[in-house]
């Protein structure tokens, strides 16, 4: 499954975003990260085949989340469901 990388000057944290290409909150999250110049990777899950979708579902569940978009995973440990700006900022030390 390909992750799309968005360059940014802030590379202190590893940020992975599970998103949908159509979702308003996901677009807001992407814009927020870009605005803060955070480097991140994302996967548009609606564009994946069913095997990969299943992997995403399992990955999110394994980390204690549920399949909802956007799901932001910071440094492979903090999982944030939804565009919760404050939680994302906190995890990124902003």
């Amino acid at each position: 499954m390909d992750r799309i990388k968005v360059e940014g000057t802030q590379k202190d944290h590893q940020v992975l975003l599970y998103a949908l290409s159509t979702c308003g909150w996901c677009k807001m999250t992407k814009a927020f990260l870009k605005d803060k110049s955070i480097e991140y990777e994302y996967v548009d899950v609606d564009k994946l085949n069913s095997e990969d979708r299943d992997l995403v579902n399992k990955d999110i569940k394994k980390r204690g989340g549920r399949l909802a978009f956007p799901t932001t995973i910071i440094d492979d440990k903090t999982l944030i469901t939804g565009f919760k700006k404050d939680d994302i900022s906190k995890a990124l030390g902003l």
Partner: protein
Amino acid sequence: MIKLENVKRRAEMDAKTHGYFLTPDPDFLQNLLEGLKENEERYGYPSCPCRLASGNFEWDRDIICPCDYRDPDVEEFGMCYCALYVRKDVADGAKPIEPIPERRPQAKIDRASGKPPEKKIPPDITGAAKDTNRKFFYCKVCGYVTFREEPPHICPICRAKQEFFEEIVLDTKIKVR
């Protein structure tokens, strides 16, 4: 090709019918309408832009916009899951737009992720009443009947206010002769 204009008109009309408003932020609105258009083009029906659809109509039925969760969500949180449809106080900016919890049952979400779930989903998952607290209500002004958790904000037929709705309590006995 689906026209964005038509997607927009449909949403506007639906909001009007039910006494809701569309999200006040123009960029956010544009994104959601484009999402709906995209989904209608690829699946053949406008499934929710903020949820993962399976592409299987039966499995996606409950998330075709306006989804089954819109009315209780607007009632409880002032906006639907995507924040496309909002209540007046949100449209006026008195209450901010913010993410709300997902009301869709987990079993349905899992099904959309593609592979058949490990445990078999009981067949009554698509049953109308079983997984909700929906009840019947009727409009005392025009007689319109609806089946949902709370009476509608306004009557979509005669525009009477919520106070004019009364719950219908059904007491049925089925006899087999």
